[in-house]
């Protein structure tokens, strides 16, 4: 294949890919517009907020979850690899994108209402927010280890700057510095891991990589290579664990949360976490399962041709191996590859199970002693990251034998992510509005708040109960789905998945532990008397802020009663991951 052919193929491919990349392009356009318009005098008078809002709304429109997710059988997006296999677009991408954009819309509104970035800074801040969101979208659709690294950096670097958003604020600067040093360190480790994997397997394209790995295992892999691979896997896990704030890579989290503003906390705890989890799913499934990518494209006949060319070009470009790309993979080969990868799945599953258990437990116990609400919520975020990692071992356990059930486990994670979005957004919105009103973020200062601001206190209580996982609130749905996926995994796989039961029990007990610190906040707000010497402060229940709090609290209640649709969407989202 000469260079001209490759260029031609790339042109066709890029043209096709841009179509599927529209939501991200919208974000890019919004960012550019926001910055360019400030060159003109008239443009400087326009609040950057409007660009950010319009950008995220349009991006959401192009994502169109209502089209792609509403029906399991007739899902209109099938798995498509774009940009020569660097990214992948499927229903899972659509789901995570939707979460990110819904969050972006609500978040931009929240920033506006809390008035945190002043007019002068707003363009910078919104640029960073949209830029990070763009990186997160890439994380959710990464299909190549290089892309994994780039996406993580693309999401992280704006977050470092956001953490130090308040200029001249010592704690904020400290937070930003800590965050970026820690981030740079783990990114380096991850890159090292990626290079080891790519060196050993001659590719970084996830599906190809899994197939190579399977063939290697089948052919009898030398022990030292196995060891190096395991190390490389651990190193990549370090990078992901940092993004997830999983123990023991969580140390940045409480400090950053305390130093950064509540708005940024909301962003880091919801959007960043959702993207990291999506990436975790991508990487875990990418390493652990071998799939016949041709079979998956078959549903979209028009694209097969270009796909095939891309694949050929891709493999040819990267692979010096003379072996021709096997276009005629038999089912049998597929099965043996899946079987060959079972030690890899086992390793990944147990590794993540271990991370999940210690993250969840540590987060909950550490939150107990906190007096600053943001610090407490940081540990709560860590604990919830633990819960959200729990379905992944179940996915890994079932991927080989019961792909359909494994997809249900991914759906459980999707449900959790969706409800978690609203819960944490409300919590941080209330923290931010109260900070504006009373200049305090100490739990003790919230004493007896219900006597003064019923709406705020009730919404906060609802949210915290939801975070505990009490019905009839949406948090319970998430927890229920996650626990169900664990039991399902155990039932489907049997004795060899006993560790899933252990994870389940730890998760259950953690729910009880978490009761203490969430309930303490509720107790302080509702039962404790108001302090005598509280400085007067004003926060009108009937205000835009109050309305916003109501608006984002409502889904916490509504999603509990109507989670059938959410479940359907989540099932559709997970549909094409494994089968």
């Amino acid at each position: 294949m000469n260079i001209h052919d490759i260029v031609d193929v790339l042109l066709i491919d890029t043209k096709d890919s841009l179509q599927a990349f529209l939501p991200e392009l919208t974000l890019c356009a919004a960012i550019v517009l926001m910055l360019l318009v400030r060159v003109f005098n008239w443009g400087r008078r326009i609040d950057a907020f409007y660009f950010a809002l319009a950008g995220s709304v349009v991006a959401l429109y192009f994502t169109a979850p209502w089209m792609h997710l509403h029906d399991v059988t007739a899902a209109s997006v099938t798995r498509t690899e774009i940009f020569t296999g660097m990214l992948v677009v499927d229903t899972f991408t659509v789901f995570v994108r939707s979460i990110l954009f819904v969050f972006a819309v609500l978040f931009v509104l929240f920033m506006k209402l809390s008035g945190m970035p002043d007019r002068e800074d707003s363009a910078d801040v919104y640029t960073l927010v949209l830029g990070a969101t763009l990186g997160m979208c890439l994380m959710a659709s990464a299909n190549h280890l290089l892309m994994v690294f780039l996406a993580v950096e693309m999401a992280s670097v704006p977050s470092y700057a956001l953490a130090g958003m308040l200029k001249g604020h010592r704690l904020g600067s400290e937070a930003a510095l800590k965050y970026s040093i820690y981030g740079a360190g783990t990114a380096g480790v991850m890159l090292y891991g990626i290079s080891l994997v790519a060196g050993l397997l001659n590719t970084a394209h996830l599906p190809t990589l899994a197939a190579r790995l399977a063939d290697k295992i089948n052919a009898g892999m030398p022990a030292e290579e196995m060891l190096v691979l395991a190390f490389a896997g651990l190193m990549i896990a370090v990078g992901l664990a940092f993004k997830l704030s999983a123990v023991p890579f969580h140390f940045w989290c409480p400090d950053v949360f305390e130093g950064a503003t509540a708005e940024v906390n909301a962003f880091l705890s919801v959007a960043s976490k959702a993207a990291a989890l999506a990436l975790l799913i991508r990487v875990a499934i990418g390493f652990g399962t071998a799939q016949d990518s041709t079979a998956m494209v078959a549903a979209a006949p028009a694209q097969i041709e270009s796909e095939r060319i891309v694949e050929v070009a891709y493999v040819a470009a990267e692979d010096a191996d003379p072996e021709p790309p096997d276009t005629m993979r038999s089912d049998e080969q597929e099965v043996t590859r899946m079987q060959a990868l079972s030690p890899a799945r086992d390793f990944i599953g147990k590794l993540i199970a271990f991370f999940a258990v210690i993250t969840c437990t540590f987060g909950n116990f550490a939150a107990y002693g906190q007096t600053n609400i943001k610090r407490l919520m940081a540990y709560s975020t860590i604990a919830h990251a633990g819960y959200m990692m729990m379905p992944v071992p179940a996915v890994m356990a079932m991927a080989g034998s019961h792909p359909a059930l494994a997809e249900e486990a991914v759906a459980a994670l999707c449900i959790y992510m969706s409800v978690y979005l609203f819960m944490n957004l409300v919590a941080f919105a209330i923290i931010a509005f109260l900070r504006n009103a009373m200049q305090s973020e100490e739990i003790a200062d919230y004493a007896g708040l219900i006597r003064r601001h019923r709406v705020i206190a009730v919404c906060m209580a609802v949210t915290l109960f939801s975070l505990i996982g009490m019905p009839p609130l949406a948090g319970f749905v998430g927890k229920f789905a996650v626990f169900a996926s664990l039991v399902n995994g155990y039932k489907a796989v049997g004795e060899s998945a006993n560790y899933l039961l252990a994870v389940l029990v730890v998760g259950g007990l953690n729910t009880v532990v978490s009761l203490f610190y969430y309930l303490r906040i509720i107790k302080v707000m509702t039962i404790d008397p108001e302090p005598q010497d509280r400085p007067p402060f004003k926060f009108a229940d009937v205000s835009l802020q109050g309305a916003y709090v109501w608006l984002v609290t409502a889904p916490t209640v509504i999603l509990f009663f109507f989670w059938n649709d959410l479940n359907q969407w989540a099932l559709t989202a997970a549909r094409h991951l494994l089968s």
Partner: protein
Amino acid sequence: MDAHLLLLSLIVFLPALGAIVLAFLPSDRHDVLRYFTLAITVAVLLASFFGLLDPFNSFSQTKFDTTASEMQGVFNLPWIPSFDIYYSMGIDGISFPLIVLTALVSALAMVASWNITKYVKAYCILFLLLETGMLGVFLALDFFLFYVFWEVMLLPMYFLIGVWGGPRKEYAAIKFFLYTLVGSVLMLIAILMLYFSSDLTDPALKDHLARCNLSAGVKARVNTAMAEEGLGKDVAPIHTFNILALQQIGQHTDQFSGKIFGLTIQWWAFLLLFIGFIIKVPSVPLHTWLPDAHVEAPTPISMILAGVLLKMGGYGIIRICYPICPQGGYDLAYFVCLVGVVSMVYGAFAAMAQKDFKRLVAYSSVSHMGYVVLGLGVWSATAGTNYNPDYWNMGVQGAMFQMIAHGISSSGMFFMVGVIYDRVHHRNLDEFGGLFGKMPAYSALSIGIFFAGLGLPGLCGFIGEVFVVLSVWTYSKTLAVISAAVVILTAGYILWAIQRVYLGAEYKGPHEDHLTPITPRELAVAVPLFVLAIALGVAPHHTVFRYMDKTIERQVDELTQWTEGEDKRREEARKWAEAENATTAITPQIQEQLAERRSVDATNTERRPINAVAAGIDRQERTTP
């Protein structure tokens, strides 16, 4: 639309609707709020009374049929069909009396709530939400729904104790919350295990599907799946949260016989559920939240706590533990009975040692609810004994009656303690005395209700206790003797309390001048409870047994059949083990069968109807000399 759907939904959700309306009423008009809440609770009482009991035969559609033993008025509406969760409710002889009790105690507790003056609006809203949770627990037939109601009741209770309680209210409230949440988490694990083990397409279940009360959609799915399975196709299992279906699965198939750490799923599920439920009952050693919660809670909340909430534990055991996991009950029979007896004895001794009047009544609840656990435990009390289903029946009937009777007598006792506390603001038993002279009407009613708690013949406490104690006799004479002896302890602490509080020459404590006669509002609470305590004791059949007889008989019958089958299976298993040891004497044919059986045991995947196993065993017996 289905009349039952309307009526049962109305009963459950009317209080919640009332709570929403209350949120829009002005918060400073205390009397409006109180009367409105009272009206709602009374409306629920009337709805359950006229709609279900129907004394005038005007609602023939929904009238509770005392001659039917089956679940009545069942409806299944899809709620989360993608997770097999249905909005499903129904009523039978076990839930019906508890519904009426709940409605009644709630209405009376609301009358008793007039002296709550702090944050009346919030109080009324939480009170109504609590009522919705309680009623929902007793009516729900979908396990998920049941769990949701079970938890829903927790939140209002936390605030009701935490905001309106006594000096250590926060400690008591969080303790209550914590204990119940631990139980709920265990229950959730058990629910998920049962759900994912269940499969409605099992051929062994075919004859029993009619009893499962499945919704039309699920029925159709099951039928197609079964037809496909008949053609040799692989079909995905259809899981279910339907409590009735799970009961059938537990009793007629081996779906819950999978092993976890060497013990069956049934055994684990029974244990987890049982722990969850006895936390609520509460039984020793998981009872320690109760005295604190009772002492700190305001009087009306204590009434509800003792009158209704504790019954949920008993209800869960009778409705869920035994019918769904009979094998767990079979294996743990003695453990269950022991828990009951230990609670009875410990509760009685602890009550005797109390200085605080309310704490005494709280410990008496621990002791009295021990009878309930014991009576239900006798149900399964068959392992290795000559059982007689009539005694089981008696034990369960006794336990159910005890629940109703305790609901009346203990809420009465708590109210009576509350009345005196409102006047003198202390509950120290040593500082009372001579109340009879100052408040004769109050004292007479109190003594009557305390005697009912004591279990005096002719009053409601007697029937349940005597049924339970008699039924235990054939199971374990030791336990029977101990439980009979507890009656003396009960008499001891109650009579001693009556002597210290009501009798004696003079009142010894503070605020003597506040000892005013009982008010009409207080009479409106006390008199109905007093009258019911007598009525239930004098005519137990017409007031209670009539409604629950048939249902309990049927459940006991079914479990008797199950137990007989289980005994046979175990006997056979023992024989097989012996036969396997003596391999030399085995003919080739038997060896073949043995090998087959071993493979079945090993994989444990093949599902066979229990009858088929039994039939195979019969054949085997004939061939073995």
